[in-house]
């Protein structure tokens, strides 16, 4: 007899994602679902989908969902969380959504120390609308609105939201993780879980920035995209926990109420 050691998490709906082949949005969805499963909060979780490739997230998670206007997910989450303080509320936002149009909303949710979890998917581009420049686009990176590469004198330099938000006292947990290989995915999972745990512990605002690929709009194969992320994004967006409120459990101590299907690999 054998034992299933890896399967689809329950918080993920049984449908096929619309994402492009090799798009790491899918990986990040799974990690969020795993965290929800493991913390046993599926029945009391409310997700907030943003506008971006992940706009249909409400179809992919087996939890209540609200679809928010572009950039406004943190405001919508605030409205939900204040009315239902014992529920688990998270937003799932792209870099156009969070770092551009939604700048005010994310900054002020963090300032208020809003007790929510934010999953911030940074793929250095506007995926859904066909590959325009994001504030996170790298210098020299070609996009449809930065043809010939982003030029700092015209469009500035990449914004590091995690560093910026870490300046705010209301931010309890801020981490940057990546999806470019399995070891990093495992670390990303721990950070995401911790960000949900921070909410359970009423620590305040928690955000995980996840570096992600957009093979389609980067114009690469999915495998090339992983490499590109590692080689180009990591130097600009260093990984790690940027801010941790004292008292947040070490990853291993996070309470687990449903079977974990993870093993340590690194």
């Amino acid at each position, binding site marked *: *007899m*054998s*034992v*299933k*050691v*890896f*399967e*689809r998490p329950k918080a*993920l709906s049984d449908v*096929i*994602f619309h*994402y*492009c*082949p*090799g*798009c*790491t*949005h*899918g*990986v990040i969805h*799974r990690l969020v679902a795993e965290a929800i499963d493991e913390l046993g909060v599926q029945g009391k979780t409310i997700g907030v989908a943003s506008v971006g490739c992940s706009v249909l997230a409400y179809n992919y998670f087996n939890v209540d969902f609200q679809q928010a206007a572009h950039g406004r997910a943190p405001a919508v989450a605030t409205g939900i969380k204040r009315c239902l303080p014992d529920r688990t509320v998270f937003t799932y936002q792209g870099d156009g959504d969070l770092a551009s149009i939604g700048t005010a909303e994310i900054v002020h949710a963090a300032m208020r120390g809003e007790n929510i979890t934010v999953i911030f998917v940074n793929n250095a581009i506007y995926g859904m609308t066909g590959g325009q420049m994001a504030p996170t686009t790298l210098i020299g990176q070609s996009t449809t609105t930065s043809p010939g590469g982003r030029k700092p004198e015209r469009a500035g330099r990449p914004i590091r939201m995690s560093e910026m938000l870490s300046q705010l006292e209301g931010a309890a947990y801020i981490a940057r993780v990546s999806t470019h*290989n*399995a070891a990093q*995915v*495992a670390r990303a999972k721990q950070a995401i879980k911790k960000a949900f745990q921070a909410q359970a512990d009423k620590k305040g605002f928690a955000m995980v920035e996840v570096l992600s690929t957009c*093979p389609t709009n980067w114009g690469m*194969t*999915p*495998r090339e995209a*992983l490499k590109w992320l590692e080689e180009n994004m990591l130097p600009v967006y260093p990984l790690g926990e940027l801010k941790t409120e004292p008292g947040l459990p070490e990853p291993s101590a996070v309470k*687990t109420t449903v*079977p*974990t*299907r*993870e*093993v340590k*690999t690194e």
Partner: protein
Amino acid sequence: MVRDSRQVKGGTSLDKKVAFDEDRCKGCELCIEACPKEIIHLAEHFNSKGFHPATVTAEDQAKCTTCLLCARMCPDTVIEIFRPDRVAR
């Protein structure tokens, strides 16, 4: 680690360590990139969505160390991993 004790449907547990839900696969090759044993490849045939799905030959199943790396990288949760009971303990 708490184990999931459900039986694998449609196959004995010993001959299949890594299982692909073929119709979900988009042939992105991220699992191939991840597998340290280099046993995953894309099949010749198309699945219902028009992609060449990832697969591991019956012989290569044995080489699988159930390291989970492929499953962890798969964006479409195509992959399930099974471990012989004694290994999981």
